Structure formats: C-alpha cells, structure tokens
C-alpha cells in the first residue's frame, strides 16, 4: 500500500486506553481518506447512541489525513477533522493545512480517533510507536503560541526534528462555540467550533514527531507527473497571484464582481477598501511569505505591527476571510487592527470568520439600539471603530462581559439580544456565511443552504468554479458555460461540485487554493500513482457522491431539516447599486431542483431508497428505523438555528 501510513490511532480519554488499528485496504479504497475515513468511522462510533450534546464525552472527534498528505509537492499538505459542532449542533468539519498531517503520517498514523473525556487537562505525545497521555495542567489557560513553543521545548533533545503541535487556546477551554484548533500557530481548523469539543474533553494539545517515510506505489509515474505539473504552476495567474499577494489578492478581485460583503452584507462597495487591500497589507504589516509542508505556492503570510495600539509580534498574518470579516464587514479601514484581531484569534484559538461576522452583527444591533454601552461594558460598538473591534475580540476569547454573549456565535446571541436582532444574521444552520456573496454568484447561495456543516464555500469547488477560475473540462457538468448571476442549472452544477469536491478536497485532501489549477485527471492520477489504486474520474465521482450523502446524513441525524436549508434574509436582499444591483438567488428554484436531483424527501432527508442504493444501509436504518411506523424519521433534539 502506498501513500497511507497504515494505522489509525484510537485514544479513549476517559479510560486512557490507546490502540493503533491497522488501516484496512478495502476501507481505504472505498473511503479514500480525510473526511471519507472520518465521517465513516464517526458514524460507526455513534450509531448505537446517536443522541448526545456536542460538548459531552459521548461526542467522538476524528482527525484524518489523506493519501497524499506528507508528499513533497504543491498543495497536498492538508488533512481534516470532524465531530458534532458545538456552534451549529450539526456535523462539523474542517480542512487544514500546515505541517501536522505530514508529521502524523511520518509517525505512522493516518488519523486519530478520540472518544470520551479526560478527568484533568491532558495532551497526547506521539513519537512514532510511543504514544502517551500526558498531564497538561501547566498549559491549561495558556494561549496557543505559548503552548506550541512550550510543548516543543518539553520534547527537545530527543530528536533533531522539533515535532509539530496541534492545540487549543483559552477560547477552547472556555467553550467558546467557535473555538479553533491550531497547528504551528497559524494553520487553523476554524469553522464550526471544534476547538470547544477539545476543551470539553480537556484535551489541550497533541504533540507528534515521526521518523518514518511514506511509500509511493509507483514512484516513477508520480515523479514524472509531479515534474510535468511544475510547468502548469509556473506563470499561472492564480498561483502567481497567491504567491505575490496571498489570499488577500481577492480584495482587489472580489470587489469588481460584488463578491465581498461590506457593512454586514449591506453593501458591495466601499471607498476605503484599498486601505486594507493587498498593497496596503504588503506595505504596512507583511514581513514575509510562508507555506505549508512541501508546497511551493507559498500563499501564507507572516505579519507584524511594531508599535501603536495594534502592535503585535511577528506571527501568522490575516487571510482574505479575516481581512473581510474584521475589515469590510465592520467598515474598519485599519489593516493594523485587522492584523491584531487575527493575532488575538490565533492566540485564544478562535475562528476569525465567525468572530468578525458576529462583531459586525453586534455593531448593527448597537446601531439599531438593541444594545448600548451599558450592555457592552462601555465599548462603543460602531462601524469602523478599530479599537473597539479589537477589544471585543479579546472579551470574546475570555468570555468576559458582553463578549460572553457573542462567544455563543451570532445566532445564539440574537436570541439573547432579542428584538429584531435576527434580521441582522448571516447564518445558515447557525454558521456565519463566508465572505463571498451569493448575490454575485447564485450558485454559492445553494451551496451555503445545503452544505451539511452550514454556510460553506470550501466543502465543494463551487467557489473555485464560479469565482476563482477552476476549469474541469473532463467533467461535463463543470465544463458548461456559466452565468454567475443566474440560478438556472445551479443545482446540477452544485451536485457535480459536491461529488467531485468530496473526492478532491475532502478525501484526497487537495488544497482548494493551490491545487485549484489541476485537471481532474491530474488529481486522480496523483492519487493512483501514490496509492497504487486504479481510480477513474467516474469512480471518484461515485465515491464522492456516496460520502457526500454520508456527511449529509450525519447532519440529518443531528436534526438538520428542510427548514435549515435556507439563506438568511440579509443575503437575499437585493442591492440597489453596484455590480450585483437587483441580483438575488432564486432559492426556491435551486433548492427544489436540488432536492429532486439528490432524491431528498420534503423534509430534507435523503430517501431510504437512495441511501440503500448507495450502500449506506446503516445510515438508512438510523434515519428510518425499522421499528418505527412507516414514514417516521429518527430525530434528535436540536437548537433551531
């Protein structure tokens, strides 16, 4: 077997039992890796007791790499995590870059499954075959950067390699519902708040150091294709744009088409946007470019502000999504303050998309008199107030004062604030929408509505297809002429994107940015050369389809229904001016077509027949228990977000 490390580590934190189980080749072929492995293992763990809270010991946590993770080439350093989300109550997952996935595989593991919860703060130390549960009390309460450096120092001297740390900060410990898990200070598993799952389990960190090497099934074929692809990368505008400006380059591109949400999604233009654009970023806070393991694209950024109210030490710089949430969304023209907000989020361990969006939501509540300075502890939550935005980020991380309300995420905060606060929400299934406007590309609207984890632009390549220039002529549905501001045909397009994307960025775990320029056949060939399998594009689409239903089924099992497959009113309000003037996705049309093509019933659940056809009988039995009357659906208690 090539590519895979060959073992999955099972750690039960309650009993301190650790077990390495061999990876079954047939399982690997069927589920590819990443979230394919994770979702399947997770379902098997919960199928006999599926009713639990996300922050309880009953919620397993899965961390899985892909078959290419750890290979020395562009855009394959990524890996995944999954669990029930404390923010949404539904299935939550993340796709992360950095170095941890590669190091885990060098240590001999394709993934880790956590169950139970520790009695005291704990971290896991993995050094090849030696796996230990260790006392993390001295790190509890410490920020992500301190823990990262401290754990590496603690393990210094045993090997020349420093090892990698994946950890949570105080936000995860404080059960902030959008807490993140962070590798190497800046590679963040942010969305859906799975850092709080670790906090509830009292799992502070994982240290891993591996000395093994990964095998490639067909090294000559792999090396030859990797060489060929170098020519594809050199001079490509997407790659060169990422190299030159990082993801911040989208500040200049997205504003043209009305893709960037401004003032909590109320505008598509802002005369101060250049003050936080890629040129300002480069001039004011950038120190150097960085990259993930083995990747030569180098889209990551390091930043620093040496003096002033927003000073912070050299460290990971903000990405596009962060610049937009703390910048355009809040009408905040200070790139230094955005860098500072990003630094606080990284140190406390918080998702910048939900954090910034929740602050923008709170600013609108403040503007409309639903909250005032008495509520906010004296902070004037006004548009463009950089100091207040930064101060509120810290309060959220600490769960201090009004920050405690916002630490629940905007949907729960709206319930507490009351009045018409929910009018200002930008959430789907309780997850704040990413910084790409469906009024500029209607297909995003359907993607946000039906993605199992909530509003998401990365679960499938729909954003790459409609917005970033991915072109897949080998997949007929993805090669058709596209009209961004049309809802016609977007259900079919989304489904093809979901099926391909499940293989591409969820299971094989190609990077949604750096691998964007690959043809489908390149991706399939790379997986085949490394693993020795003989997948075809058709087969990976079929496998992707099956795993997509598995993920959707998990959210259904946790209570997701048709009423959750909706966009918030704010995202469906047409703009009066600008590039998206008058444009609104036709959600009724798209969702109706999608349900029909995906064989969903009117409740938003895949029919029993389609689940059985896809060979998912366990999921079918959970959603349609045979002991229940005909038509009865298994349903769990769920927040109505």
């Amino acid at each position, binding site marked *: 077997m090539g590519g895979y490390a060959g073992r999955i580590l099972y750690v039960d934190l309650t009993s301190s039992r650790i077990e390495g189980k061999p990876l079954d080749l047939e399982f690997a072929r069927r589920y590819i890796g990443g979230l394919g492995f994770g979702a399947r293992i997770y379902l098997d763990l919960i199928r006999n007791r599926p009713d639990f809270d996300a922050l309880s010991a009953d919620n397993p946590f899965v961390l899985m790499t892909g078959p290419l993770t750890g290979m020395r080439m562009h855009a394959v350093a990524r890996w995944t995590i999954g669990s029930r989300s404390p923010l949404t109550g539904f299935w939550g997952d993340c796709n992360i870059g950095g170095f941890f996935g590669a190091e885990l595989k060098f240590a001999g593991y394709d993934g880790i499954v956590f169950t139970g919860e520790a009695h005291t703060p704990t971290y896991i130390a993995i050094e090849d075959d030696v796996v230990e549960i260790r006392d993390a009390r001295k790190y509890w309460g410490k920020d992500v950067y301190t823990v990262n450096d401290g754990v590496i120092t603690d393990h210094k001297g045993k090997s020349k390699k420093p090892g990698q740390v994946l950890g949570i900060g105080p936000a995860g410990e404080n059960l902030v519902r959008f807490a993140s898990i962070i590798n190497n200070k800046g590679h963040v598993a942010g969305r859906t708040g799975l850092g709080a799952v670790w906090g509830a389990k009292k799992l502070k960190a994982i240290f891993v150091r591996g000395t093994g090497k990964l095998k490639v099934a067909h090294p000559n074929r792999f090396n030859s294709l990797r060489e060929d692809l170098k020519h594809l990368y050199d*001079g490509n*505008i*997407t790659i*060169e*744009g990422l190299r*030159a*400006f990082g993801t911040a*380059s989208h500040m*200049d*591109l997205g*504003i*043209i*088409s009305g893709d960037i949400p401004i003032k909590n999604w109320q505008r598509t233009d802002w005369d101060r946007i*250049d003050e936080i*654009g*890629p*040129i300002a970023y480069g001039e004011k806070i950038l120190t150097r470019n960085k990259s993930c393991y083995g990747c030569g694209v180098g889209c990551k950024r390091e930043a620093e502000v040496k003096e002033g109210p927003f000073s912070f030490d050299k460290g990971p710089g903000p990405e596009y999504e962060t610049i937009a949430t703390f910048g355009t969304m809040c009408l905040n023209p200070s790139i230094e303050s955005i860098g500072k907000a990003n630094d606080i989020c990284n140190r406390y361990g918080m998702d910048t998309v939900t954090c910034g969006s929740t602050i923008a939501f709170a600013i609108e509540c403040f503007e409309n008199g639903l909250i005032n300075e008495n509520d906010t502890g004296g902070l004037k939550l006004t548009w463009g107030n950089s100091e207040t935005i930064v101060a509120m980020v810290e309060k959220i991380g600490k769960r201090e004062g009004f920050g405690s309300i916002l630490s629940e995420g905007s949907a729960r905060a709206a319930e507490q604030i009351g009045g018409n606060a929910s009018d200002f929400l930008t959430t789907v299934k309780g997850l704040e929408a990413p910084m790409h406007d469906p009024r500029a590309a209607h297909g995003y609207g359907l993607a946000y509505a039906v993605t199992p984890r909530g509003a998401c632009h990365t679960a499938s390549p729909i954003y790459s297809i*409609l*917005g*970033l*220039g*991915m*072109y897949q002529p080998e997949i007929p549905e993805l090669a058709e002429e*596209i009209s*961004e501001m049309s809802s016609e045909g977007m259900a079919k397009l989304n489904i093809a994107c979901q099926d391909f994307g499940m293989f591409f960025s969820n299971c094989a775990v190609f990077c949604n940015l750096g691998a964007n*320029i690959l043809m489908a056949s390149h991706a399939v060939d790379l997986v085949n050369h490394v693993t020795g399998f003989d997948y075809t594009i058709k087969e990976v689409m079929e496998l992707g389809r099956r795993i997509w239903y598995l993920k959707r089924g998990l959210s259904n099992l946790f209570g997701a229904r048709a009423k959750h497959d909706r966009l918030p009113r704010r995202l469906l309000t047409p703009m009066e001016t600008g*590039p998206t003037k008058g444009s609104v996705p036709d959600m009724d049309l798209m969702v109706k077509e999608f349900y029909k093509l995906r064989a969903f019933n009117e409740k938003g659940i895949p029919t029993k027949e389609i689940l059985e056809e896809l060979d998912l009988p366990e999921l079918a039995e959970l959603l349609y228990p045979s002991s229940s009357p005909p038509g009865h659906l298994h349903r769990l208690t769920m927040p109505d977000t």
Partner: protein
Amino acid sequence: MGVFESSEKFEEVLVGFFRNLGDTPSIANKLLASKLIIRFTYSDPDLVVLVDCSGDKIDVRPGDKDTKAEVEMSMSADIAHKFWFGKVNLMAALTRRQMVAKGPIPKILNLLPAIKPSYAMYPKYLEEQGYSKYNIH
C-alpha cells in the same frame, strides 16, 4: 455578430474611453506609477491598442504593434466591453482563456485597484459620448 459592428467603431469607443481614463488624475497617477506598457490585442472586430504608462502622461496608441510591451493582453471585443462594465470575473475569464495575459502577473494584479473607478465611468462615458446603444442595462 458581436457588440461592435466594425474595428473602426470599436476603436472610436475604446480609445476614447482609454484617453478619458488617462485624463482622470486619480486613475492616471496610479497607472503612471506602474511605468507599464500594455498592449491590448482584440478580436471580433480586430483592434490593437497600446497603453504606454512609462512617460509623464498616459499615451494611448491605436495600431501600435511594434513597441515592446511588458504586458500583453488579448481577448474578444465583447469580453473587453463586458470587462469595463465590471461584469467579467477576471480569474474565470483568464482560466477559460477568454482573456490571455502575458507578463509580470503581480504587476498586472497591482493595476486592479487603479482601474476600479473605471467600471462606473464606462457606462457614463458611453451615455455622454453618444454611444448609449452599447450600454448594458
């Protein structure tokens, strides 16, 4: 047939617009700072326009195929027309080769903030110069 009936008409409209941009200090100053020489090669109808930002003012030279340009852009006249309305997704157009760009990509991307105001200017220009039939409503 495309939006423009002839090369002459397309040249009249587009070169006039480029010169309009060159006379707008907020745009011209940023373009001049780039020092770039850009050649646009259009098809259906055919046209070549060189925009020289290397001097003290923006020099727009239709038909100049000889001057060495640092950036070469080629596209159809219809795509160019849509682009100036802000209705072309640049990355998608480049990937699908509706537009082809050759030259230093960071420098090309650096121009985007400079030309941003032009998207609002193009429909106004068409209206004011008697080209309202080309406007996209």
